[in-house]
C-alpha cells in the first residue's frame, strides 16, 4: 500500500518528562522517525561544583524523583572510591536493601501505571481501579512494599535521608526489619497475581538486534558497582565508563545519545537479564522460563517482563538480606573519614539501567568536576532506531495509522524512559 503518513506526538504521555515522537512516511516508505527529548536541562554537573562531599548525595538524588536512591548511591560510591573510604559491611547490605526497594517501587509504577493501560486499551490506570480491582490492588501492594523497603533502609523513599558518604547516618531497628520481612512474605501472592496477568498479554513480536550493557560482579545479580560488560563481549573497569558511553549530541534533543560497538545500545532490566540471568534467584529463573525469556533477547517489549522477573528476584533476595542483617550487629554503620583530593566513578544499576556518576574532589573534599550519565541517555539511540525499525515492520504488516501510533508509543514506554532524569 503506497501511502503517506505523518505522526507527530508532542509530549508523549505516561512517561516521566517531556519528549516527542515524529514519524514521516511517503509513498509507503519511511522517510524519518525521531525520538526528540525537549525537557528543560537543569545542569546538575555545574550545580554540584563547590559543594562539600557530604552534601553531594543530597543534591544529586534530586536529579530524579523515581530513582533518587540510585543517584545518591552512585555519588556516594564515586566519593568513597575517590577518597578511599570503605563503608562498613552492614551499611553496604542496608544500601543493597534500599536499592531493592527503589527498583521494586519503580518497576511497579512503570508496569501498572504506565504499561498496563496500553494492553487494556485505557488512557490511564484510573478506569482499571473498577474494571480490574484485583490487579490494581496487587500493583499498589507491590509499589507500597517497594517504598516501605526503601523507607526502612534509607529513612525516606523519595530523596533518602540516611544514605551518607562513609556508610549510613542511621540503621533500621531490628523490629522494623522483622516487620518488613513479614510484609514481604504477605505480598508474594500479589506478585503471583501480577505474573498471571502478564501471562495473558499479547506482547508485540518485534526484534531488532542491539548491544545490551550492564554491570557485572560475577557473584550476585548486579546492583552497586562492578565491571561494565556488554552482550557484544566488551568488558571494562568501572572507571572507564567514558569508553562504554561515547556521548554525542543531536540538535533535536536536549538529552544526549551514547553508543559502544554498534550504532546504539540498551541498558535496563532486559540488559541486566541478558548479561546476568544465571545470577537470578531460582524463583525468578522459574518465572523467566514460564515467559520463555532467554538471553540474548532482542525484543524491547520484553523489558517489561524482565522487570517483572526482577521483582520476583527482589522479594526473595530482600528477604535473604534481612535474615543476614537480623544476625548482625548494626552499631557500626559509618566509617569516619578525612576529606581528600581524588576522582573516581560510581556505577550502580538504577531501575532503568546502568547509572554513572564521576566525581573529582579537592583536598577539602569539595567537588571540582562532575559528570553524570543516565540510563535513559544510554537508551535514546536505541529508542530512536527502534522507532524506525518498528514503523518499517508495521508498514510491511499493513498496520493502520492508529496501530502504528500505538506501537510507537508502546515501544518507547517499554524502555521506561526517565526523561527529566536524562536531562539533568
Amino acid at each position: 500500500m503506497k501511502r503517506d503518513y505523518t505522526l507527530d506526538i508532542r509530549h508523549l504521555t505516561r512517561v516521566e518528562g517531556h519528549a516527542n515522537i515524529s514519524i514521516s512516511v511517503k509513498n509507503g516508505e519511511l522517510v524519518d522517525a525521531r525520538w526528540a527529548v525537549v525537557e528543560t536541562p537543569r545542569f546538575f554537573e555545574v550545580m554540584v561544583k563547590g559543594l562539600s562531599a557530604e552534601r553531594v548525595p543530597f543534591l544529586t538524588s534530586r536529579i530524579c524523583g523515581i530513582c533518587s536512591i540510585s543517584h545518591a548511591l552512585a555519588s556516594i560510591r564515586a566519593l568513597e572510591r575517590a577518597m578511599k573510604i570503605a563503608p562498613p559491611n552492614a551499611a553496604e547490605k542496608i544500601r543493597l536493601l534500599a536499592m531493592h526497594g527503589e527498583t521494586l517501587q519503580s518497576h511497579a509504577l512503570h508496569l501498572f501505571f504506565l504499561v498496563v493501560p496500553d494492553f487494556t486499551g485505557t488512557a490511564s490506570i484510573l478506569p482499571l481501579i473498577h474494571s480490574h480491582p484485583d490487579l490494581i490492588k496487587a500493583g499498589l501492594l507491590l509499589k507500597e512494599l517497594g517504598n516501605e523497603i526503601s523507607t526502612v533502609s534509607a529513612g525516606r523513599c523519595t530523596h533518602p535521608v540516611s544514605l551518607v558518604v562513609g556508610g549510613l547516618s542511621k540503621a533500621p531497628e531490628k523490629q522494623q526489619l522483622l516487620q518488613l520481612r513479614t510484609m514481604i512474605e504477605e505480598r508474594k501472592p500479589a506478585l503471583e497475581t501480577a505474573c498471571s496477568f502478564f501471562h495473558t498479554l499479547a506482547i508485540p513480536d518485534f526484534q531488532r538486534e542491539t548491544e545490551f550493557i550492564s554491570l557485572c560482579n560475577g557473584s550476585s545479580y548486579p546492583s552497586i558497582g562492578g565491571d561494565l560488560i556488554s552482550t557484544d563481549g566488551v568488558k571494562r573497569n568501572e572507571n572507564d565508563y567514558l569508553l562504554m558511553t561515547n556521548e554525542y549530541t543531536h540538535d533535536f534533543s536536549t538529552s544526549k545519545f551514547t553508543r559502544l560497538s554498534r550504532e546504539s545500545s540498551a541498558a535496563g532490566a532486559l540488559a541486566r537479564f541478558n548479561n546476568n540471568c544465571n545470577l537470578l534467584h531460582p524463583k525468578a529463573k522459574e518465572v523467566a522460563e514460564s515467559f520463555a525469556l532467554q538471553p540474548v533477547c532482542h525484543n524491547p517489549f520484553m523489558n517489561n517482563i524482565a522487570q517483572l522477573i526482577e521483582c520476583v528476584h527482589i522479594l526473595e533476595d530482600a528477604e535473604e538480606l534481612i535474615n543476614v542483617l537480623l544476625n548482625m550487629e548494626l552499631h557500626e554503620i559509618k566509617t569516619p573519614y578525612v576529606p581528600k583530593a581524588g576522582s573516581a566513578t560510581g556505577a550502580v544499576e538504577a531501575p532503568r539501567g546502568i547509572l554513572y556518576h564521576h566525581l573529582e574532589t579537592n583536598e577539602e573534599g569539595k567537588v571540582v568536576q562532575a559528570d553524570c550519565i543516565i540510563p535513559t541517555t544510554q537508551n535514546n539511540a536505541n529508542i530512536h532506531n527502534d522507532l524506525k525499525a518498528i514503523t518499517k515492520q508495521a508498514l510491511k504488516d499493513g498496520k493502520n495509522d492508529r496501530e502504528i501510533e500505538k506501537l510507537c508509543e508502546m515501544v518507547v514506554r517499554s524502555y521506561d524512559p526517565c526523561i527529566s532524569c536524562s536531562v539533568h
Partner: protein
Amino acid sequence: MKLKIASFDFTCCEGCQLQLANGESTLTDFLELLDIRNFRELSSEQYNDYDIALIEGSISRQDEIERLQAIRQQAKTLVAFGTCACFGGVNSLKNKFPLNETLAEVYPEMPVETLLVRKISEVVKVDFSIPGCPVNKEEVERIMVCLATGSLVTLPKHPVCVECKARLNTCLFELGEICLGPITRAGCNAVCTTGKTPCLGCRGPSEEINMPAFVELIRERKLSLDDLQEKIAFYNAFGEFCSHEA
C-alpha cells in the same frame, strides 16, 4: 463535588508529582476526591477545563514562562507544589554560575536555551504554596480535603524542632552539627533529623524566625559559618539570606 485538578511539571525531578501516586493504602480513596483533568505523567487523557493547577518545578526557559501563563489563565487556584516551585529549590544553585559558562560546559557543541532559575511566584500569581522536597503526601491529602470542603488551607507555623523533639531525637547540635530545624517550617514530621541528618530547610522559614539569633548560636558553638551558608543556600528557601545572584 470532585476537585477538577491538573498537574504540570516544569524544571524539576518530578518527585513531588510522584508523591501523588504514593501513599498506596489510601490512594484509591484519595483519587475519589479528584477529577484528574490533565496529568501527562499518568494519563493519556488531557483536558483543559480544570479549577486547580498543581505546579511542580521552577522556571528556567522561555517556553516554560508561556506555558505557565496559559495555565494561570485557566486555573481558579494555582498551587506552587514542592520546594522547586515555592522557592526555586536545588535548581537555584545554577544561579551561582554565569549562564554562558554553564552552557559551554554541559553542551559544548550545540545551542541550548536556559534562563536564571525562578520560583513560580516570580512569573505568575500563586494562590498558595505546599513546600517540601518532596512534598509530604499526608499534608497534600489534608490540603486536598480542605479544598474539597472549602475550608481554610493552612501550614504549620512552628519550626521543625517541635516535631523533632516530639520524636525524642537527640538534637544534632549536641553532636556538633548545624541543623536548620530551628528556623524551618514544620510539617514533614522531622523526617531528616529522625534519620540523623541535618534539616536543610526545604520547607522554607517558619513564622517569625530570628535569623540573627540563629547565626549567633552557630558562632557561640564555634560551628562553621561556611557550612551554615552551604546549608541555607541548598534549597534557596530563605530569601535574602541565601541570594545566589552575584
